[in-house]
């Protein structure tokens, strides 16, 4: 549905997006992840024909953004970072205007407006002035605007920014409902966002594509080893416990953490592909200590993200060093 090849966007002094390629299948929800200033918004703007690429190609539903922008624009719904609202209009009036702008036939407009008002739960504010709405409602009006013409592709730039947790959950639900018929690309710098609502992640940092995969694969791929957190009841000497844990076969590293409520806390990592939980427990119990807790520590998307973007930084630092 979306195809991007070697996309580069250069501004006067900076390269915002550097040779990015990816594809999105029909009906997928893809999360576009990256720190602030990574080039997410720029990429989205190219996809929506707002900005032309410096080089490379982007196509939506087979239409190139530069060659046939009108065909692309008909098929996309776009919610920019700040929802594009006219404060002096009423909600209904605004949606009616956008609907016509998107080329909905006059006879269908009313039913489409009613539909999105219901979907985005805007019933209470139908005739309120947009300028008087709260941030959460504005965001929803923005979303309603993006889906009013039933576009094939939805492009949402930080759809949940500035919303309270309840509203975030509502938006997530809405996105899930939409995902079947629409292809959705959403950008965010909040990682849990992606874990919750996306099937695939595209991570970019400093304009470069760092990784793209399904959420599950990405977590697996980066979690080479198992990590376990142990709590041992105080009594024995910390270094003694650590030494003992290190001797368990398959353990690559043991880190003593700060004691909690008088409990000694350790984090153990296994070698690639080894299961160490049972052995760890046995070793502690055999030594006559009380094992209070033993739980696996999953590598969250957060860690992955940090690892990836940090690696990126190291690389570029090396390159900079090389050129100097």
């Amino acid at each position, binding site marked *: 549905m979306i195809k991007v090849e070697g996309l580069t966007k250069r501004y*006067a002094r900076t390269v915002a997006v550097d040779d990015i390629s990816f594809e999105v299948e029909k009906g997928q929800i893809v999360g576009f992840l990256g720190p602030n200033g990574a080039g997410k918004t720029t990429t989205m*703007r190219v996809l*929506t*024909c*707002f*900005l*032309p690429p410096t080089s490379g190609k982007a196509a939506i539903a087979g239409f190139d953004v530069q060659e046939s922008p*009108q065909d692309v*624009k*008909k098929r*996309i719904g*776009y919610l*920019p*970072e*700040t*929802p*594009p*609202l*006219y*404060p*002096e*209009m009423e909600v209904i009036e605004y949606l009616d*205007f*956008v609907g*016509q*702008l*998107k*080329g909905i036939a006059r006879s269908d407009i009313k039913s489409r407006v009613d539909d999105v008002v219901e979907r985005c739960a805007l019933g209470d504010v139908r005739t309120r002035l947009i300028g008087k709405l709260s941030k959460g409602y504005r965001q929803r009006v923005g979303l309603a*605007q993006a889906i009013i013409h039933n576009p094939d592709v939805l492009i949402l730039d930080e759809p949940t920014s500035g919303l309270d947790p309840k509203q975030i959950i509502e938006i997530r639900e809405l996105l899930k409902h939409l995902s079947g018929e629409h292809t959705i690309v959403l950008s965010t710098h909040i990682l849990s966002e992606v874990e919750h609502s996306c099937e695939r992640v595209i991570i970019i940092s400093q304009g470069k594509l760092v990784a793209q995969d399904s959420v599950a694969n990405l977590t697996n791929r980066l979690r080479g080893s198992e990590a376990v957190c142990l709590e041992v009841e105080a009594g024995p000497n910390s270094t003694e416990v650590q030494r003992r844990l290190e001797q368990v076969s398959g353990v690559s590293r043991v880190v003593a953490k700060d004691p909690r409520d008088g409990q000694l806390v350790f984090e153990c990592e296994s070698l690639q592909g080894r299961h160490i939980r049972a052995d760890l427990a046995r070793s502690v119990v055999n030594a006559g200590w009380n094992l209070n807790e033993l739980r696996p520590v999953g590598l969250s998307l957060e860690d992955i993200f940090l690892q990836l973007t940090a690696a990126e930084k190291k690389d570029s630092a090396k390159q900079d060093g090389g050129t100097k």
Partner: protein
Amino acid sequence: MRNVILICKKELKSYFASPIAYCVMALFALIFGFGFYTATRDFVKFSFQAQMMGQMQPMNVNEQIIRPLLGFASTVALFLIPMIAMRLFAEEKRSGTIELLLTSPVTDLQIILGKWIGSLLLYLCVLFMSIVNVAMLFMWGKPDLKPVLVAYLGLILQGACLLAIGTFISTTTRNQIVAGGVTFFVCLLLWLLSWFTAFDSGGFSQVINYLSIVTHFENFAKGLLSIKDVVFYISMIFFSLFITARAMESLRWRA
């Protein structure tokens, strides 16, 4: 065409949803009413005097009231047009709604035309305020209708032309004040150009003189409809709207 009308309607609506429309219309009505009062008062005074001195030559309402009054209106318009044009694109750029327009299936030209026509319609509403006064002259006097119509056509063309220039200036900035200020100075400059060349008839100053908006309005004010002046205004409108389109394109490349 449907898109042009749609955008034009939206523009008009937002003019009337904000104080701008009322403000501009009220200011114009006030100033024009003041000019009208002064012109008619003097006219009445002079015609009494003329009668008392036994000169029976009738005085001309067209020459002595309507013509200077509409000339005055054209000057007032120079000041009001920046207020109308400044928000056209600057506001959309500031609030980010320009992203909605540019990512919707409408062409740049449709957006520009819609906005320009919208502002032109507001300008017509402003001019309409003066019709009340002029109509009074028709009720109690017998002025010629034709030169009045020609003068109004001139006012409309001059306004359309300045609005097109204002539209262009509004695309270049996201700050309404800057857009308004620059438009005002450009209007002023185009008006003053005729002064620089008042006593010089060299080739260069003739070119400068030709560019002055006011020189072309003079004939309309006299009731003379000359193709030359109409062509001037229309070509200025085309040129301004053309560079507006170019400016919008460059906006995308630079943004």
